[in-house]
């Protein structure tokens, strides 16, 4: 009997190669049917044709920093000298050259504030104060005129600080306005509802360019004679008007998701309208509307590039201006690739953040 009992260990059976391992992965993901196999082969062929020339242009055949434009043109590869030569102009615009540490610090402050605001542990009242102080510091750095900093006119501002300031200041001013608009749209009072709906739909129905036009050609007519506001501020106002309408719709989505019982409970506790909104409805509604709000932020950040049309030099504007230098004409691939990567890093990290936040918030709702 005992001779049938196997003592000692049996060598491990290798898993069948057609269910696990790299070959199985290939079978399941690339060659699981005849047309997928065909497509895979076609795509590999296409990639093999496209990627080597691209890498060649980007890296292997590219011109090292320091070559002249003539050498670049003769060689044919990417000309990174263009980017290094024009780097400070593209990033900081026409800001006085020896003062350009100021816009650099501005960029750092804004990015730091945004990064801190991304962590939910820091969503405390002091964060609002930090923003106010940060924006004040940015204004002092950019304008100067105090603390021994020389005064810089805002017509000289440009590049990345302008893009960041237009979006960050635009969003932070538009946010409270959009809450009021969203509440107005959900209001019981017909006149207030009509005013809010008209504003929101009017703004959302027209392209941003027409609002910027309005800002550049009509705002001067709206003001009393003698009063004049500069182009940058007019563009900023147009952005705020635009962002408020879109953010109001995102917040309205959150408001609509709050069950009626919450409103009734607030009424039953004897809270008046503003108390109920501030203490019960808005905290829940805003949490729900954060992901769509971040999506609005992303599109708004991309839309700041439109200021080029009314003659302001944001990041895209400075890149285009750098391209119009006769000595460096024609290196548009390098210029657009460079600023495209900057825009992409900002937008992509925002969208990843919004997805993470969405997951976290959903986890909070799960029981």
């Amino acid at each position: 009997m005992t001779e049938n009992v196997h003592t000692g260990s049996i060598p491990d059976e290798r898993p069948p190669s057609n269910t696990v391992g790299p070959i199985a992965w290939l079978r399941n993901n690339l060659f699981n049917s005849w047309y997928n196999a065909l497509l895979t082969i076609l795509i590999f062929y296409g990639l093999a044709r496209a990627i080597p020339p691209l890498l060649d242009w980007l890296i292997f055949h590219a011109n090292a920093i320091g070559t002249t434009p003539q050498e670049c043109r003769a060689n044919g590869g990417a000309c990174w000298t263009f980017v290094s030569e024009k780097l400070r102009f593209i990033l900081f615009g026409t800001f006085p050259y020896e003062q350009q540490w100021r816009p650099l610090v501005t960029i750092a402050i804004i990015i730091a504030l945004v990064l801190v605001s991304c962590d939910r542990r820091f969503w405390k009242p002091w964060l609002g104060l930090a923003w106010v102080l940060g924006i004040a510091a940015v204004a002092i750095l950019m304008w100067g005129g105090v603390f021994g900093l020389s005064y810089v006119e805002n017509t000289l501002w440009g590049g990345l600080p302008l893009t960041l300031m237009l979006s960050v200041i635009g969003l932070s001013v538009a946010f409270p306005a959009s809450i009021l608009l969203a509440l107005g749209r959900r209001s019981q009072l017909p006149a207030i509802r009509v005013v809010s709906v008209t504003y929101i739909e009017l703004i959302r129905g027209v392209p941003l360019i027409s609002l910027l036009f309005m800002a550049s050609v009509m705002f001067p007519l709206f003001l009393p004679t003698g009063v004049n506001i500069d182009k940058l501020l007019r563009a900023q106002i147009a952005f705020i008007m635009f962002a408020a309408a879109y953010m109001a719709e995102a917040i309205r989505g959150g408001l609509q998701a709050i069950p009626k019982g919450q409103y009734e409970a607030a009424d039953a506790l004897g809270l008046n309208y503003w108390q109920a909104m501030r203490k019960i409805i808005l905290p829940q509604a805003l949490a729900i509307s954060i992901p769509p709000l971040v999506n609005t932020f992303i599109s708004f950040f991309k839309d700041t590039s439109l200021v080029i049309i009314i003659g302001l030099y944001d990041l895209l504007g400075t890149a285009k201006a750098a391209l119009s230098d006769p000595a460096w004409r024609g290196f548009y691939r390098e210029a657009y690739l460079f600023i495209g990567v900057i825009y992409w890093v900002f937008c992509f990290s925002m969208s990843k953040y919004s997805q993470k936040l969405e997951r976290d918030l959903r986890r909070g709702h799960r029981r």
Partner: protein
Amino acid sequence: MASETRDTVRGAQGGSSFSLSDPTVRAVFYQVLVVGIVVAVGWYLIHNTLDNLSRRSIATGFGFLEREASFGIGESLIDYSPRDTYGRAFLVGVLNTLKVSVIGIILATVLGTLVGVARLSSNWLIAKIASTYVEIVRNIPPLLQLFFWYAIVSDSMPPVRQALNPIPGVFLSQRGLFVPVPVADPVWGEMGFALALAVIVAIFVHRWAKTRQARTGLPFPTGLTTLGLVIVFPLIAYIAGGAPTALDVPQLAGFNFRGGSVISPEFFAILTGLTVYTAAFIAEVVRSGIIAVNWGQTEAARALGLNSGRTLRLVVLPQALRVIVPPLTSQYLNLTKNSSLALAIGYPDLVSIANTTLNQTGQAIEGVAMIMGTYLTISLGISIFMNWYNKRIALVER
């Protein structure tokens, strides 16, 4: 204690004739306040504007639309010359905007659907390529993409004199792609008539097939029949009309080509830019719509013996469309509004022509009002159409 409370409540409600504690009074008060502020601000702005206009002696009103525009427009769907009025120039702009929006919406829908389905493909490579495309394109400003496309086209194309000539009659140069078009012929009208007839016949066939299937259960290839009718009827009209083959071939004349039809670099850039950008968003809409349909629906359809094509057409798509249509509408609206970026690369859309007009005439308010009015009308039109379509496919609940 209780009566005291009741007294205070009554006192608060009815003590004086005007009290903000009374909900009705409060409602009226706040509404009057808000409307009052809106009217006051509006009046203030209008007052300033009229004041400024009279100071600069600019005449208000749309009278300038009757005046001669005296600027040329690169491309136009209708006859236009600089001798025409501003009104006609504006109409050219509106038509150009509609042209790029309509073609862009069609192409973006096709490309977006393909990419959206590709992201769900079981082929890992296809899914990765599709998601890379979406993640790159979505996160770069559309204006930057437009500049890029425009630079590519105007940089890589040869000058007019060395135009590429891949097929006889087709010329590719910096001025665009010139293709020959058939010369207008009366037979076109007859072909249109034949097409209308084919559509009517197809509708009858569709009805008959539906009742027959309801009665006998036998399916009828309605789609193929319709396709055949739509092709065969105009073809018969064409051959019966003598099959004219005259072509308007583009000829090099001076610094540009004459005749034929042209796809300008500006049009190509704005169309490609809008299509590529919007398709990335449409892909996400389509993908979420397909994911939203429970996998059990597909399994049930297969269990009923439907093949994969019919499963998609009869079971999955009708349910997915309910999720897809509302966000798709807003993407169509975005594309139409983004077509105003054409201004930046010189495609003569309505914003660009209105911009030229208001620079020449100084009629800023009228110009901006016309841009906004036109876009609002287009937006409203798309919304109404898509809402009608949405209602048609919406779930009919008992």
